C-alpha cells in the first residue's frame, strides 16, 4: 500500500501528498521524498510489465506489500483493474483523502454517511463509501479542538456561510432559537383526534366545507353531456393516494355513469388500472342500488381500462390514436376528458401533451394539495371544471343529491368532514399554542 504516514500526527496520507491531510505538516522532506521514489519506482515497473503479455513479475523485497487487514475487518476482495492506481478507493486503505476518517464510535458520522448514500429510498442498508481507518496499533492521538457549545458553533457556521457584510457590522442579525416542536406529542394529539371520533362515530363538530369555484362548472359540463357520450378518462393515481382521491372521484364517476357516458380509461401508473376498476365497480354498485337497476342489465357494459408505460409523452399518443390504445375498430372523438390526478403535474401533463391535440374540454379531479397550482388553468379556461380534495367532493356530492334526488348522500363523506374538522382543530391549536409559547418564552441568551 503506497501511503505516507505523517511524522507529526501519524495520519496515513496518499503517496505523493505534499502536506498532511489532517494537520498540514509538510511531508515532502528530502529524505522522505527519496524514500517515496524508491517505493513508487517498483510499482511503476510492475504496471509496465503487467501491460505487456507474459508472466507476472515476482514481488521483490523493495516492492511495497499490501497491508494486512486488521482482525476486525474481512479480507479485501479482488479489486477491479481500474482501481490499481487508486488505493484510496479500497476498503482496507488506511489513509484519509479529503473526507474525515470513519469513526465507529461516532454515530453522527454514520448518520451523515447514511444520508449521503441512502440506498433505495432509504429502505435498504446504505453502501459505505467513506474510508475506514485501519491502525496497526494504538491510533495516534489527534489534536482536539476545544469544546465549543453547539449554539455558538451554529452561530459561527451561519455567519461563515453568509456573504460578508462590509462596513455594516452592526447589522449582523441574531439567530432565533430553534423551535422545539415536540413532534411525538403533535403526532399523538393528531392521531387521537382522528382515532377517537372515528371509533366512537361522533357526529360533531360538522362545519360546512369551503365551496371552491370550479365544482359547479364540472357538474354542469357532465350534466350537459349527451347520452352515450364518449368520455376519455386519464387515471393518474394509485392506491398510495386512493384514501383522498377515491372520495373525490366517486361522485364524479357516479355522475358519469348516471349520464350513461361511455368511459375509456387509460393510466400510466402500474397501480392505476386496478384502482380504476375497483372505484368504477364501487360507483356502479352505488348507482345500481340507488336506481334499482339489476346487475344483469348492465353486465354487457364493459369499460376498457388500459395501462401504458412510457411517461407523459404517451399522452399525445392517447390523444391522437385512441383507437390503437383501446384496440377498437373505431374510436370516436371524445366529448370530454376527465383527469383523476393525485398531483398537479398529472393534470398539467394532460393539458400540455393531450389537450392541445384533441381540443377536448377537460375536467380535473385532484388532491387538495394540487388545487392552488391548478387554479390558474381553471381561470384561463383550459380546465372546464376543477374538483379538489374532500371539500370539492363534498360539494359535488351535494350538487348530485340536490339535483338528482335518487342518489343518496354519501355517509362516508359526512364522516370525512367531521374527522377533517377534528384534525384541523388540532392543527389550529398547535399553531396558536406554539405562537403563544414563542411570545412568552424567555429570549435566547446572546
Amino acid at each position: 500500500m503506497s501511503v505516507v504516514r505523517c511524522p507529526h500526527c501519524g495520519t496515513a496520507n496518499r503517496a505523493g501528498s505534499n502536506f498532511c491531510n489532517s494537520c498540514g505538516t509538510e511531508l515532502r522532506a528530502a529524505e522522505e521524498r527519496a524514500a517515496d521514489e524508491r517505493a513508487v519506482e517498483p510499482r511503476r515497473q510492475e504496471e509496465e510489465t503487467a501491460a505487456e503479455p507474459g508472466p507476472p513479475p515476482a514481488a521483490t523485497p523493495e516492492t511495497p506489500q499490501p497491508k494486512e487487514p486488521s482482525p476486525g475487518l474481512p479480507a479485501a476482495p479482488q479489486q477491479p483493474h481500474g482501481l490499481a492506481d487508486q488505493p484510496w478507493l479500497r476498503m482496507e486503505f488506511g489513509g484519509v483523502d479529503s473526507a474525515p476518517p470513519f469513526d465507529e464510535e461516532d454515530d453522527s458520522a454514520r448518520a451523515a454517511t447514511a444520508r449521503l448514500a441512502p440506498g433505495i429510498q432509504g429502505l435498504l442498508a446504505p453502501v459505505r463509501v467513506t474510508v475506514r481507518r485501519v491502525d496497526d496499533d494504538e491510533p495516534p492521538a489527534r489534536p482536539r479542538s476545544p469544546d465549543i457549545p453547539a449554539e455558538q458553533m451554529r452561530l459561527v457556521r451561519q455567519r461563515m456561510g453568509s456573504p460578508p457584510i462590509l462596513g455594516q457590522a452592526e447589522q449582523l442579525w441574531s439567530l432565533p432559537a430553534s423551535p422545539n416542536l415536540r413532534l411525538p406529542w403533535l403526532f399523538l394529539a393528531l392521531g387521537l383526534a382522528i382515532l377517537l371520533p372515528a371509533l366512537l362515530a361522533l357526529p360533531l363538530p360538522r362545519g360546512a366545507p369551503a365551496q371552491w369555484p370550479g365544482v359547479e362548472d364540472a357538474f354542469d359540463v357532465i350534466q350537459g353531456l349527451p347520452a352515450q357520450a364518449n368520455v376519455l378518462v386519464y387515471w393518474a393515481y394509485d392506491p398510495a393516494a386512493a384514501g383522498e382521491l377515491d372520495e373525490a372521484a366517486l361522485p364524479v364517476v357516479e355522475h358519469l355513469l348516471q349520464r350513461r357516458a361511455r368511459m375509456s380509461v387509460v393510466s400510466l401508473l402500474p397501480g392505476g388500472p386496478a384502482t380504476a376498476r375497483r372505484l368504477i365497480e364501487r360507483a356502479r354498485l352505488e348507482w345500481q342500488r340507488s336506481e334499482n337497476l339489476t346487475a344483469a342489465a348492465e353486465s354487457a357494459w364493459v369499460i376498457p381500462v388500459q395501462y401504458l408505460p412510457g411517461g407523459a409523452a404517451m399522452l399525445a399518443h392517447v390523444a391522437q390514436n385512441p383507437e390503437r390504445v383501446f384496440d377498437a375498430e373505431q374510436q370516436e372523438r371524445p366529448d370530454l376528458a376527465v383527469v383523476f390526478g393525485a398531483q398537479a403535474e398529472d393534470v398539467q401533463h394532460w393539458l400540455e401533451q393531450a389537450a392541445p391535440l384533441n381540443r377536448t374540454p377537460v375536467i380535473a379531479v385532484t388532491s387538495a394539495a394540487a388545487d392552488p397550482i391548478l387554479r390558474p388553468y381553471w381561470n384561463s379556461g383550459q380546465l372546464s371544471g376543477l374538483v379538489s380534495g374532500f371539500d370539492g367532493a363534498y360539494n359535488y356530492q351535494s350538487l348530485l343529491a340536490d339535483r338528482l334526488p335518487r342518489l343518496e348522500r354519501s355517509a362516508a363523506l359526512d364522516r370525512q368532514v367531521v374527522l377533517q374538522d377534528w384534525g384541523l382543530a388540532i392543527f389550529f391549536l398547535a399553531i396558536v399554542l406554539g405562537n403563544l409559547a414563542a411570545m412568552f418564552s424567555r429570549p435566547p441568551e446572546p
Partner: protein
Amino acid sequence: MQSSALVFDTIGAWVAFVFTLMVFSALAGDNALARLSQHILVGASLGYAAVLATRHVILPRLVDPLISGEAGILDGWLPLGLAASLILAGADRIMLRPAKPNAPPIWRRLLHGAGRLVTALLLGIGLGAGIMGALQGTLIPQYLRAAQIGFVPSAPGYLPLVGLLTLVLTTATLLHLYLDPSRHLDRQPGAVRGLMASWLWLGQRAMWLAAGVIFARLAASRLSLLIARVTFLTDMIHDTAFWTWLQSL
C-alpha cells in the same frame, strides 16, 4: 366460488389491517416491523409492475404481433431491437466488468453505443415533448390570459384590478428573488431605493402568502389520507365480535 372470494376479501382486509399497524409503528421510532412492511411494499409493487407490463404491454403489443406476423418493421421489429440493445447494454455494464476498460472488444463497444443511442432517443423524445408541451399547454396560454386580463371590454369592473394586482405581485416576487438590495440599490437615489425596497417587501410577503396557501391545502390533503387509513382501521374494529361485545355492555 362467491364464498371463496369472500374469504379472500376477509383475509386481504386483515392483512391490510396488520400492515397498516406495522407502518404506523414507525411513529414510535425505527423498528423491524416498519422496515419489514416497507420492504414488502416495495417488493410487491415492483413485482406487480413487472407482471402488469409483461401481461398488458410486452406480450399483447409486441410479442403476439411479432409471432403472428402482424407487426411491421417500425411498430414491431424496431422497438424490439431498441429494447433488446438497451437491456443487453445495461446488463453487460452491470454484470460483466471489463478486464481492460481502456480497450474493450469491438462488439462490446458497439453494444454500449447502441445502448447510448436508445437512451439518447428516450431522453430526446421526452425532453422535446416536455418543452413543446410546456410551451403550448402552459406558458403561452397562461401568458395570453395574464396579458388579456385587463383588456377585455366585456369583463366586470374588478378584473382590471385583478390584472394590475397580478402584475404587481408577479414583478415584486421576481424582484425579490433576483435583486440583492445591498448590492444593487446602494448607489441609487433615495426615492428609487425606497420604492424598490417597498416592492421587494411586497414580493416577499406574496411568496409567504403563496407558500401558506399551498401548505394549508397540502395539510388538508395529507389529513384526508390519514383519515382514510384511520377509518379503515376503525371499520375493521367495528366489524369484530369484540366491539359488538363492548357495545352490548
